Each structure stands twice: as structure tokens, then as C-alpha cells.
């Protein structure tokens, strides 16, 4: 599943951040899941639990979902992404590569495909918290 690759990326990056911050144990990873990519949160959580390394053994993965908001660059209109407006093929395509939304979606007001994903694109790590050896 694609969710496994994204979970692998989170585990790897959280470990790198911990290394940079000198953390010996990670206690908390705060993740933002953008609605546009339609990541299956349950599969994603399961993948995280299976992939976590020793440093992440006690870590809590807090997942916050972010609504996808789009803004037209031609007329400035802002609108919310509703996956149910799309057929299955389009939903799946956007799940794998969210940027292909530009092929399938257009501004509901002026019809332009030139829009910006203001929020809720994909997976982001908001913060990594943990303990240093002397703590």
C-alpha cells in the first residue's frame, strides 16, 4: 500500500530530526494528514506501528487531519475539496500524486485549472518531541 511508503518516510524523518536534536528517545511525533491525498489513517497508523525503530518504541503518533482548501490563481476564489465530487479513477490518481488534481479539478467559479493548494495537500511532520540522555 502507498500508506506504507508514507509511513516509512515519517519514521525515517522523525529519526533524523531526533538525531539533529540530540534526542535519545522519541516520545511524540505530531503528524498532519492532508485531506487531498486521502491517506487511509488506519492503514497509515498500522504501518507506523510496524515500522517504528527502537528510538520510536514508546513514541505516540498524534495524527491531525487537515481540510484541503484550494484557491484559484485566476480569480482568487477559495473552495474546499470534496472527494465525493470525483470518480474513483480521479480519487485514486490524486491519492498517489496529489498534483494531478490540476488535471481533474477546476475552479468552480471561473473554470481555471490554475489553483493553489492552500492547505491539506499530504503528509507533514509538525513536530518531534523526546528525551535527551540527561533528562
Amino acid at each position, binding site marked *: 500500500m502507498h500508506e506504507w511508503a508514507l509511513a516509512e518516510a515519517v519514521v525515517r524523518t522523525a529519526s533524523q530530526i531526533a538525531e539533529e536534536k540530540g534526542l535519545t528517545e522519541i516520545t511524540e511525533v505530531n503528524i498532519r494528514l492532508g485531506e487531498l491525498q486521502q491517506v487511509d489513517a488506519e492503514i497509515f497508523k498500522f504501518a507506523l506501528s510496524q515500522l517504528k525503530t527502537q528510538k520510536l518504541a514508546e513514541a505516540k503518533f498524534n495524527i491531525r487531519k487537515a481540510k484541503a482548501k484550494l484557491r484559484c490563481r485566476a480569480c482568487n476564489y477559495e473552495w474546499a475539496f470534496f472527494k465525493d465530487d470525483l470518480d474513483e479513477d480521479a480519487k485514486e*490518481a490524486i491519492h498517489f500524486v496529489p498534483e494531478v488534481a490540476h488535471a481533474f479539478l477546476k475552479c468552480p467559479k471561473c473554470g481555471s485549472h490554475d489553483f493553489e493548494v492552500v492547505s491539506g495537500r499530504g503528509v507533514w511532520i509538525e513536530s518531534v518531541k523526546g528525551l535527551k540522555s540527561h533528562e
Partner: protein
Amino acid sequence: MSDPRVSLISERLRNIHRIIAVSSGKGGVGKSLVASVLALTLARRGVKVGLFDIDFTSPASHVILGISGAQPKEKKGIVPPVVHGLKYMSIIYYARDRASPLRGADFSNALIELLAVTVWGKLDFLVIDMPPGISDATLDILRLIRRAEFLVVTTPSRLAFETVRKFIDLLLELNVPVLGVIENMKMTNSNFIRREVEKRSVKFWGEIPFDKNLEESIGNAEKLLSTEFGKALKRMTTENLDLG
């Protein structure tokens, strides 16, 4: 805020021996044809090869190789299908036959996504079909795949080379490996391009004569390999890439 995908890219490319970015400063010089036929030639030589079309707004390699109906598989990432003996990845699996109007930041995001989730496995060569220009794609490949070697395509036109020359000079200034330069669609005996390339101590791979029969071979891998274009590229591949 951190983008977790970037950390995965080097892992995904770890088992790829060489990465060749077929590029040019200019459009319409034959990059996609060179990239596609180069990948095909390597596959025919029995080496493990992948072709990654990152010309997201105008992909063409699937048309050149006559690829339709193939789809990647999901297995803890995306596994590209094997077509004509090579692993093939393109945005066409997702955008289908629709136009994908992408600005620079969107291009970068799509590239990072595909680099992070595509599971290439072990390859001798990954050939990247680059979009034209010295902008987002070139800058992203330089940033994300630091060991990429650039194979530059030009035509004999001084108009094309005006930009290609700047592109080569930029790569050299950045100490990026320039594998060589191919002069495509050669119609005269001019040595202008060869002189300019060799003046920069860059390997001139050679000339590909303008092949008026090439167009009718588009979409047919076997026919492509038997064109003058295909034969010239095969000769250059043998002379310039160590295939063991």
C-alpha cells in the same frame, strides 16, 4: 514543519548503479527520443534499466515506446511495470490523457512524491527523461539526486545551442558530471557543435543524422531500434557507457 518524503529518496535510489538525466536547455531537440531509445538499447544489452519520464506537463516517452495499458503495482510503495524489458514510470498512469498544468512548486511536489514512493529495486541504469529548460526540473534533480550524470542533447541549430551552451556551462560550474553531448538531427557537415563541446572538455558522443523515417517508427520499439537514429544511438551507447 518537515516534509518526510525527501528523506526517503536516497533510500529508493540506493540500489541504482548509475542515473543518467537526458536533458537540454532547449525543447524539441529529441530528448525524449534519446532517453527512450537509450533505455531500450540498454535493456536489449541485458542490463537492468529503468526509464522515468519527468516531463510531467508534456510526457511523450509512452507514445515513443507505444506503452498503453500498463499500470504500476502497490507494494509498500509503487512498483513500476516492466515494459519492453525496462521498468517504466510516468505521470500518465495518474493524469491519464488529460493536460496537467503545473506551476513550479507543484512540479517539485509531484517529483518528490514519485521519487519517494517509487520502488525501483536493483538497477544498473536509471534513465530520466527531463523536461526542457533550466528551471524547476533541472534544479530539483541537482538538489535531490546529486549523483545524476547529465547527457545533453542539442540540434545543430545555433538557436538551440545558444541555450544548450549556457546549460552545459552551468552544469560545469556546479561540478555536475556531464556525460556527453549528442548532436541530433544533423543535416550538414558543420563542426560547430563538436568544436564548442570539445572546447569545454566535454565528451562529444557524436551526431545523429536527421532521419526522415523516424516518425513512422514512433510507437514501435523494434522499428525504432532499426532506424538510423536507433543504430547511431546504439553505437554511441557501446562507445561511451561501460556495459561490462
